């Protein structure tokens, strides 16, 4: 508990305390500031979108890794973790050289909103794969066989038997991916261009507040972000419980 307090609780409380120094007006100012509101909208919106894509793609990749055998599988296993291992600013450089103005590919998403999307997608890829994979491996095949011998098609078996078993893992991975996306900085800061009202995300906004000596404003934005993340994580958990119970 003390470990947990030192690492998590005290810093969190510090942020909220700093934010409250500005009183309610501090929050109101932060929220009514057009530029801040736009940054929050962009960050949260993109985080949701990326999480949704990950739920589908991450689950599919985990499924393929567990159930299929193909050449190069080990290589792919390692590849999945690259976004974890790479320092985010290096990821940002990679993305910039791949999708930036000097890209060898015919794509240039620099300074566009899609840059934020791509950067989020890159750094959050491993979360759902890595949470779902072990659960899928533990799943007994005879449970699926039982469903099939009772007349359930492959799809029905997946939807009614397999999916409910992995939904908690998907939800946990989704919460992680969402939280990671909301807080992402390094990988997108180069490619997105940080254009106010367009591609500026919340973490960039907080940094510029701090650079402008507006510590209270930065803490207020951080607190709002914290609230949103908490709400989303709790919602995912509730949703997961409901889905599992319904079967």
């Amino acid at each position, binding site marked *: 508990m003390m470990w947990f307090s030192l690492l998590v609780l005290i810093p969190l409380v510090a942020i909220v305390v700093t934010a409250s120094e500005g009183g309610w007006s501090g929050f109101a100012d932060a929220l009514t500031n057009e530029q801040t509101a736009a940054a929050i909208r962009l960050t949260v919106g993109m985080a949701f979108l990326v999480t949704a894509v990950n739920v589908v793609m991450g689950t599919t990749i985990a499924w393929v890794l567990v159930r299929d055998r193909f050449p190069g599988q080990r290589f792919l296993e390692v590849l999945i973790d690259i976004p974890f291992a790479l320092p985010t600013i290096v990821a940002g450089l990679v993305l910039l050289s791949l999708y930036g103005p000097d890209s060898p590919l015919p794509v240039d998403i620099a300074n566009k909103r899609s840059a934020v999307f791509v950067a989020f997608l890159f750094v959050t890829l491993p979360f759902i794969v890595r949470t779902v994979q072990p659960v899928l491996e533990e799943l007994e095949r*005879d*449970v699926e066989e039982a469903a*099939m*011998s009772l007349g359930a098609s492959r799809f029905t078996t997946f939807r009614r*038997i397999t999916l409910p*078993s992995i939904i908690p893992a998907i939800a946990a991975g989704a919460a992680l991916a969402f939280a990671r996306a909301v807080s992402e900085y390094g990988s997108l800061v180069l490619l997105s261009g940080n254009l106010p009202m367009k591609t500026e995300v919340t973490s960039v906004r907080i940094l510029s507040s701090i650079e402008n000596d507006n510590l209270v404003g930065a803490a207020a934005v951080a607190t709002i972000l914290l609230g949103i993340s908490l709400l989303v994580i709790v919602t995912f958990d509730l949703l997961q419980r409901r889905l*599992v119970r319904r079967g």
Partner: protein
Amino acid sequence: MSIEISNVGKRFGDFVALDDVTVSIPAGSLTALLGPSGGGKSTLLRIIAGLEHADSGRVEIEGVDATSLPPQKRDVGFVFQHYAAFKHLSVFRNVAFGLEIRKRPKDEIKARVDELLELVHLDQFGDRLPAQLSGGQRQRMALARALAVEPKVLLLDEPFGALDAKVRKELRDWLRRLHDEVHVTTVFVTHDQEEALEVADEIVVINEGRVEQIGTPDALYDEPESDFVMSFLGPVTTLRGQLIRPHDIELRTTEAPAARAGTVSRLVRVGFEVRVDVVSADEVTTVSLTRAEARSLGLEEGTAVWLEVAPGAQVRTPGATAPGSGTPTTAGSR
């Protein structure tokens, strides 16, 4: 005949799991597939269920060629060794699963599930999750789930293998009684000869991918067609180089003309039974006696004893391909 398996073969890589297996399983019977682990009996059961496909041969269920039918279309109920419970669904919903798939009306499902839960003595447990049940209860739930869809055939793969000895025995009796009530053609896999002898109407002995012998428990026990069947179905010892069951030997402490002389080398008491190892000229023979018999003979290590084949007992010449003769060699001298 309800299940007709003809010339079925199955390989896993280099390993031959089943080699040209032909078996007929009569409708309404309770049949055991008995054999050692890895002998192919589970593979055969899974092929009947469609969970595994045979490389060659044909499977017919109630006159319908099922060789290439998927498991969903075979109309079989399958019970797995490790229950295969749907962990996120209540006991009631587990049993209802097959009926929900078939889109039966809600009240019909409820009536049927309630009836089945009563049949397997789980009527108090409908709202529980499988994790809240004991192993024996979970297996009864799995059985009710398989019976819910009124399958043509009920298949059980080592159904009591994961349970402890006492529950095993209870469930075994209970399965026999249930089968007498429900009368669905049932095939179960076991490596436990006692289980097969006690429960089954007919036993198919499978070893190394081949059918060794098919018959009633009595026929297999009394007239084994191979050394393997004889030794797999019960204890076996040798007397004068012949295979014989330890309880088919008469032991006396006084000399008899045609009897084999020997010395007691070891006495082991297992509950009501006493196993006596007797060393004679060139062999060690194990004789099983009741505790009372052993006591009245006053046996101890070193006692001189004489052995002969009990009247009417079966003996086998090792390596012979026919059943043991009903007239033991020593019977004439009595």
